[in-house]
């Protein structure tokens, strides 16, 4: 690598110049059908007939939609067989969440690196998304599915960075694997930006709406910053809190405790409600994990970690 290229790459990373960083990177485009569906949903007045037409032409998405609406999550008395009926029952935000989940599974790269466990990445993402949805149901009612979608795409930059900028990003992940420190903290200390900001650039490239782009960029911020930006009434605080959940590769009790404390202090969610939340999340995870190609036991360590917080003495954990 020539010295000019090296200096140019150093400058791009040091500045967090994502446009330059991801310029030569082949970021897989969203599958065509998914992109068309998301584009229609993001319009000020989405056309349900048009949505139905696009979704019906895509067997994979149609099946996902119908199996979701007919699952025990919704406890419907009669079977739903039409895509339009499913869209009406689920609502556009839920349809968007399902389509995004389907599209992400295809578009997110799978770096061949010993530091990256693709299954663990999706297990973490899915649990955090479900927790964000549960928190949003209490903190920002009506926006649960926005929270789910945003959390689902919040860490999209991690595999992209590891695949395309591994000489810079691998040391960060190595560090993260060795110490109980938040990944975003290590990224900020080393380069002055974090994967949330990088991910927001990728989402913008994929033409996601600005709301989701902002939520992803904000998901690693401290809550006082979220308030300063005027995002306290959005699902951003739910994402910040859910983002504290430790990875199933490195479940840390302290992190769970921190998440529960923050939810209590800033979202007014009583710690007493958490066992029920964990149960709900676990049930939902068990219902949908197969859609992401995940094995059932992958997330067990995180659920065990969360349960331990309630089984152990608090002072013992802090020690």
């Amino acid at each position, binding site marked *: 690598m020539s010295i000019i290229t090296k200096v140019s790459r150093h400058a791009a990373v040091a*500045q967090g110049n994502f*446009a330059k960083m991801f310029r030569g990177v082949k970021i897989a485009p969203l599958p065509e059908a998914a992109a068309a569906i998301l584009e229609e949903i993001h319009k000020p007045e989405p056309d349900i007939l048009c949505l139905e037409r696009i979704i019906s032409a895509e067997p994979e998405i149609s099946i996902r939609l119908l199996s979701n609406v007919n699952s025990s999550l919704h406890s419907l008395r009669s079977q739903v067989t039409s895509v339009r009926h499913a869209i009406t029952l689920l609502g556009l935000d839920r349809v968007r969440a399902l389509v995004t989940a389907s599209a992400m599974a295809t578009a997110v790269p799978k770096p061949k690196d010993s530091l990256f466990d693709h299954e663990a990445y999706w297990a973490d993402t899915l649990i955090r998304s479900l927790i964000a949805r549960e928190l949003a149901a209490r903190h920002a009612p009506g926006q649960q599915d926005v929270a789910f979608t945003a959390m689902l795409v919040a860490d999209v930059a991690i595999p992209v960075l590891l695949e395309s900028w591994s000489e810079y990003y691998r040391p960060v992940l190595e560090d993260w694997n060795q110490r109980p420190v938040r990944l975003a903290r290590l990224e900020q200390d080393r380069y002055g930006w974090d994967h949330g900001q990088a991910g927001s650039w990728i989402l913008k490239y994929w033409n996601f709406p*600005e709301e989701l782009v902002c939520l992803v960029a904000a998901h690693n911020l401290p809550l006082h910053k979220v308030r300063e930006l005027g995002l306290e009434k959005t699902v951003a605080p739910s994402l910040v809190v859910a983002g504290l959940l430790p990875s199933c590769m490195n479940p840390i009790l302290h992190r769970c405790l921190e998440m529960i404390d923050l939810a209590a202090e800033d979202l007014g969610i009583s710690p*007493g409600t958490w066992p029920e939340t964990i149960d709900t999340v676990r049930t939902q995870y068990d219902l949908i994990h197969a859609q992401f190609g995940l094995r059932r036991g992958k997330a067990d360590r995180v659920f065990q970690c969360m349960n331990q917080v309630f089984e152990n*003495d608090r002072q013992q954990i802090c020690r």
Partner: protein
Amino acid sequence: MNDDQNMKPKSDWLFELVAKLSGFQLHARLRSAGSDKKSRLLFAITMGVAAVGTITAAAVITDLPLLFPPLAPSAFILFTTPLAPTAAPRSVILGHLSAALMGLLAVIIVSIAIPGADLGDPTIMNGPRIIAIVLAMGLATTTMLVLRCSHPPAAATALLAAMGLIHDPVVMAALEASAILLCVEAYVLLRVVGGLPYPLWSPDHDMARFYGTLAGGGETKSSGWERVHAELLAQHEDLPSDDHDHINEDRTEVYS
């Protein structure tokens, strides 16, 4: 536990040096919320002055007619909206070249069509001259649109040619040389000082859409979410500590 010292980056010296120096680039300044407009203004003024100043100095030293009026608006566009399609080297170089040629072509056409038009002397403003100017403007505009190299200051170059001010091949070559020199300067200054992805030849539309006003986008068009996103991209080094000191050990609510 405070292990901030251990958390410092273990990067190589070159990265550290580049990181420090690139902190002064316009791109880095644009990431800092609040300094956007001022930084852009300061950058455009200093770089524009430096670029035109260098060409002026080159003109004085070489005694070549490198200075021509449309150069100033070209420099203005290059340093205020460097990532706009009109500022790409392709637009600047081809724009001025095609406009000058169309100006000359208009003079030739009018000279042939109106015998005794007397278009050799630039000080004479007569009917044929007016026709040549109008024709030059039309031809230059059409050519730039067809070749997709629109560069508004080049329209003035067509005017200069139609007015008889570009009268010999040396002037024509000098004009084109100064357009090339301006693009080379812009490339170096915008990339090194600005940290901006100024293209080598054609505009990069994919990249331009991330640069708003620098790519010619309007300032008032951004939505509330876009403004928040710009602020979010400027946020850094303000994450909560990870030492868990803030976890209150004395809390007794429902944990066991």
